[in-house]
C-alpha cells in the first residue's frame, strides 16, 4: 500500500463516521420533536376539556335562575290549555322564526283560543355569533324570560319579532329591550332583570337542553313530540302544521 492510498482510506472512514453521526443526530431530533408534538397536542386537548368543565359550572342548576313560570323542566313558557302540545324552539335573532311567526302565528293563536293546543315556547340562543359579540340571542331570550315572569311573555315575544334586528348587526341594546318591554306594560322589575342579566344563564341552559334533544336549527316545531318539517327540512307551511296538529289530536 502506498501512503496516498492510506490517506484516502482514512478520509473515507472519517466521512462515514460523520455521516453516521449526522444520521444519529437526525434520529434523535426526530424522536424528541415527535414526543414534543404529541405532548403539545395532549396538553391542548386537556385545556379544551378544562375550559369546558369550567363553563359547565356556570350552567349548574344552582347558578341558573329558572323563571318560576317555566314548564318542561323549566325550559319553556306555556300558552293555552289544549290537549295537543306544540313545542316551538325559537331564536329572536332568527329571520325564519320571524317568518314562521308571521305565517303561522295567527293560526296558532286561533288554535290556542279554540283550546286545541298548548304552545310551549323555548327561547334559545344559537345565533349569538350573528350580533357582533353583543350576544343578542342570549340577551333577548333572557329578557323574554323576565317578561314571562311578569306575565307578558306572548306580548313581549311579539314585539321582539316586530322589531327584529338584522342578522350580523349589533342587535337591540338593553335600553331598547327595556323600552319595548315598557310598550307592552312591563315595569321596573323587568328592567332590572334585563340590566342584571338575571335570566341570561338560563337561556344558555335552554339552548343546552335544545341541543341535547337532538335539534339543530331554529325554528324547530314539535307537535306531541314529533318534529314537523316541510320537504327537505324546510319550514313547514301553515297547512303542514295544521295537518300535524289535526293528526295528533286524533
Amino acid at each position, binding site marked *: 500500500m502506498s501512503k496516498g492510498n492510506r490517506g484516502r482510506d482514512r478520509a473515507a472512514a472519517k466521512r462515514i463516521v460523520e455521516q453516521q453521526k449526522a444520521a444519529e443526530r437526525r434520529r434523535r*431530533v426526530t424522536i424528541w420533536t415527535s414526543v414534543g*408534538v404529541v405532548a403539545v397536542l395532549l396538553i*391542548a386537548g386537556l385545556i*379544551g376539556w378544562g375550559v369546558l368543565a369550567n363553563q359547565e359550572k356556570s350552567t349548574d342548576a344552582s347558578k341558573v335562575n329558572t323563571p318560576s313560570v317555566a314548564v318542561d323542566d323549566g325550559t319553556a313558557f306555556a300558552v293555552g290549555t289544549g290537549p295537543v302540545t306544540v313545542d316551538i324552539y325559537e331564536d329572536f335573532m332568527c329571520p*325564519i322564526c320571524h317568518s314562521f311567526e308571521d305565517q303561522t302565528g295567527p293560526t296558532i293563536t286561533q288554535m290556542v283560543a279554540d283550546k286545541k293546543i298548548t304552545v310551549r315556547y323555548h327561547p334559545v340562543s344559537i345565533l349569538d355569533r350573528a350580533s357582533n359579540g353583543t350576544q343578542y340571542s342570549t340577551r333577548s331570550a333572557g329578557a323574554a324570560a323576565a317578561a314571562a315572569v311578569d306575565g307578558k311573555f306572548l306580548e313581549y315575544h311579539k314585539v321582539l319579532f316586530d322589531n327584529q334586528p338584522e342578522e350580523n348587526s349589533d342587535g337591540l341594546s338593553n335600553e331598547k329591550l327595556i323600552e319595548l318591554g315598557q310598550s307592552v306594560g312591563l315595569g321596573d322589575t323587568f328592567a332590572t332583570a334585563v340590566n342584571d342579566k338575571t335570566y341570561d344563564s338560563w337561556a344558555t341552559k335552554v339552548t343546552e337542553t335544545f341541543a341535547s334533544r337532538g335539534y339543530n*336549527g331554529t325554528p324547530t316545531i314539535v307537535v306531541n313530540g314529533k318534529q314537523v318539517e*316541510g320537504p327537505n327540512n324546510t319550514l313547514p307551511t301553515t297547512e303542514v302544521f295544521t295537518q300535524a296538529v289535526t293528526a295528533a289530536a286524533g
Partner: protein
Amino acid sequence: MDLRQQPSRLAAAWPWISTLARLGLAAVFLIAGGLKVTDLAASARAVNAYDLMSYDTAKVIGAVQPFLEIALGLLLLIGIATRLSAAIAAVLLVIFIAGIVSAWARGLQIDCGCFSKGGELTGGRTAQYGLDILRDVGFLALAGILVWKPRSKFSVDGLLMGDR
C-alpha cells in the same frame, strides 16, 4: 444537459413547495380552530348536528377540537416534527371528510361547521357537501405533500437537524 438539470431543479424546489404547503396547512388549522374556540357551546352543537354521538360526547369533542386545531396549526407554523404533524393533520382531515360524507349519505341538512360554528341550517339554505369535501381533499393534498417531503425552509426541524 437539460435532461440532467431538470430533476435537480425540482429537487431544489421541493423544500420551497413543502414550505408553502406547511404554512398553508398551518393557516387552515389556525383559522378553523380560532373561529370555533370563542364559542365552545356552538362548537358542541355543530358536532352534535352530525348526529353521530351523544350530546355529552359531542360537547367534549366540540370543546377539545378547536384547541387541538390551534395547537396543530402552531406546530405546523414553526415546522416541528413536520412529518408527524402533517400525518396527524391528514388523519383529522380524513375524519372530517368521513363525517361530511356520512351526513350527506344520511340526507342531513347541516352546515359542516368546518370554518364556523356550523350546525344550524334551516329553511331555504342548502348544505354544500360536495364543495366542503372538495376543499378538505385539497387540504389533505397539502398534508400529503408534507408527509412525503417534510423538509421545508424556515422550520424548527431544519434548524435542529442543521440543514441550513
